[in-house]
């Protein structure tokens, strides 16, 4: 047997290992609802097919003295039934296991993935290809009837999405696929890394840091640390219309509703304290990269509530968030963020330090940044598949393990889904969120997982 190939884990992904706890497993889940129930045998075949092409997914995570590293394995993924709590731990220290799992329940296919391997956008490429492969195996009749031109067009579309990820001329080898996005980017544009000397802190950022009391939602933790998932299905048009009415984007509109919901759901909310939301930004939109590894930056948006009480309205929150968001995604500030990431990745200091110490430092960093956040959101945007595949796929879902209340949104066709996760048993924030939307005339469908022994004991 030839020697194993390995790539050390980049510093940016290291944070997920350091911040991983029993409650916040740093695992996220993507799901798709199909028109009919899932055939596990065909799903396994589709998975085998796609797995063959995605060498990054062959990785197992190992610990060294100085680094964690991703090592190519010859493990084969197995499709299973839905038997674990949502976002259950995927990576265990000292165990050689794949960093993702694929399973199914009724008519849903789920993919769960450890965040150190890839981010939402990267994982979506894999998931889309898995769904395409499965639909083509499950409904061969839909593809048989196509004429030659339509077939060509479909193949072309499939290849195109594939090309996002693979260079056409050669299949990626493991070390290229597992290389961090930062390093593969730096290889393309050497100049980006050179200028990190001029990095400065944004002026308003420092101003805001002065003695701002960020509100934290507290609740009763779930009895076995599983995340409490509450999943909303909404008609995308209606929500988009509401967002337009407030002259803001869908993501920021939902963030504003969420903030208001937190404020209403917190029994001892101190007027005047701030609500802070973390919104990740996919850096691939701004810097050309076809890496499937983590390549995102986060923005932190703050709304300081009215000290005198009641005056907080969605419109005002939305306006503030939009202003701040636009400031943080200007080319200059994003380049700044990228420079920080590059400097961090190449910093000689991080090379010399033992891994447990690095983990400890990152834990502290994570703790401090958690203290300054109320909620987090993530929107993967609109997903579309080429016809006739698209017709077999209904709603898509996306959620993540959470150390604080969080939601993830994704849309497909006419359906937007917003999935809340939180470490707490309470669902008051989600209740307020739903009521704000239903009061505005949006039809909402709710599903939730059961987290307490009382709910689980009910016959049914």
């Amino acid at each position, binding site marked *: 047997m030839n020697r194993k190939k390995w790539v050390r884990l980049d510093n940016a992904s290291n944070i997920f290992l350091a911040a991983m706890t029993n409650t916040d497993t740093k695992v996220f889940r993507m799901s798709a*609802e199909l028109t009919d129930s899932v055939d596990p045998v065909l799903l396994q075949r589709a998975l085998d097919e796609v797995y063959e092409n995605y060498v990054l997914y062959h990785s197992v995570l190992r610990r060294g003295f100085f680094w964690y590293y991703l090592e190519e394995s010859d493990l084969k993924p197995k499709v299973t039934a*839905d*038997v*674990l*709590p*949502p976002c259950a731990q995927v990576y*265990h220290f000292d165990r050689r296991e794949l960093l993702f799992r694929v399973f199914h*329940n*009724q008519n*849903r296919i789920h993919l769960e993935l450890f965040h150190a391997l890839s981010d939402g956008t990267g994982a979506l490429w894999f998931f889309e290809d898995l769904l395409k492969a499965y639909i083509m195996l499950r409904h061969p009749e839909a593809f048989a009837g196509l004429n030659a031109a339509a077939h060509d067009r479909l193949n072309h579309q499939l290849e195109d999405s594939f090309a996002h990820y693979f260079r056409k001329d050669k299949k990626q080898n493991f070390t290229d696929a597992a290389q961090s996005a930062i390093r593969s980017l730096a290889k393309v544009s050497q100049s980006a890394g050179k200028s990190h000397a001029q990095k400065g802190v944004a002026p308003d950022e420092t101003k805001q840091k002065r003695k701002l009391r960020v509100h934290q939602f507290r609740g009763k*933790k779930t*009895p*076995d*640390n*599983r995340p409490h*998932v*509450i*999943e909303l299905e909404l008609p995308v048009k209606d929500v988009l219309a509401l967002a337009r009415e407030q002259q803001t984007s869908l993501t920021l509109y939902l963030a504003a509703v969420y903030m208001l919901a937190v404020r209403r759901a917190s029994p001892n909310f101190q007027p005047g304290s701030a609500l802070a939301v973390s919104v990740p930004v996919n850096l691939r939109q701004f810097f050309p990269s076809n890496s499937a590894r983590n390549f995102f930056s986060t923005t932190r948006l703050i709304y300081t509530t009215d000290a005198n009480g009641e005056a907080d309205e969605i419109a005002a929150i939305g306006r503030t968030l939009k202003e701040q968001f636009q400031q943080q995604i200007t080319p200059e500030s994003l380049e700044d963020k990228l420079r920080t990431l590059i400097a961090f990745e190449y910093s000689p200091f991080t090379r010399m330090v033992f891994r447990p110490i690095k983990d400890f430092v990152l834990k502290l960093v994570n703790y401090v940044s958690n203290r300054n956040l109320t909620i987090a959101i993530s929107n993967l945007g609109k997903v579309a598949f080429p016809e006739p595949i698209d017709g077999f796929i209904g709603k898509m879902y996306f959620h993540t393990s959470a150390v604080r209340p969080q939601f993830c949104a994704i849309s497909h066709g006419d359906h937007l889904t917003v999935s809340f996760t939180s470490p707490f048993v309470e*669902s008051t924030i*989600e*209740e307020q969120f*739903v*009521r704000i939307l*239903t*009061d505005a005339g949006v*039809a*909402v*469908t*709710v*599903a*939730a*997982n*059961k987290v307490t*022994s009382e709910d*689980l004991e*009910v016959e*049914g």
Partner: protein
Amino acid sequence: MKHCPHCNATIKGDWEQCPLCQTTLDEATKPVLADPYPKIPLRFNKEIVWKYLTLMSFVLIIAFLLIELIWIGRMENLQLALFGIMSMWLSVLILIRKRRNIAKGIVYLIVSLSLLCIYLDYLSGWSGWSTTYAVPIICSFAIVSLYIAVRLVKLGVRDYVLYLLTAALLGLLPALFLTLDWVTNSLPSSLSVMMSAVTLVIILLYHGGEIWRELEKRMHV
């Protein structure tokens, strides 16, 4: 489908009360929407663990005080009682953390705590309290806490029987202390040996076959 009149939302699944606001839901109309989240039993329940341990601690403290006051008539060994209780807490917590590799967890626990005590004893000028009291107490309580943990984590017999066996065998070690005369008081060691022997007999009687099959599997060359 079910509908919550308070949230004005459609609810999927078999909920009686709204999962958001706990209002009783309206009667279901024709197509009942399936629950996309299967009922997955709790892996453990932090609250129950907490209650159990607190209760046990109180019972132990009271029992020890009674024994000390009524039987022996002095209060010298209170630290030892506290040490025993702390070792119970630590044992259960490590067992739960290491629930995926309990063999490692137990060996780790018994060995590390025992060595720690022997070291403490050595530092304070070797009076033999570690071999007389600490190690036998740790061994005995490890068996007790393993019984508790196995119930709470809901393990199958095959998954824990070898570890219980390991713990029971380690609990026999104080017999060595007795024969080598490393003890000033033979009661704790005898107790540990007795508990281990009883446990051994019970598990060999009830789960002998399982043990054999497990050993065969794990020792497969």
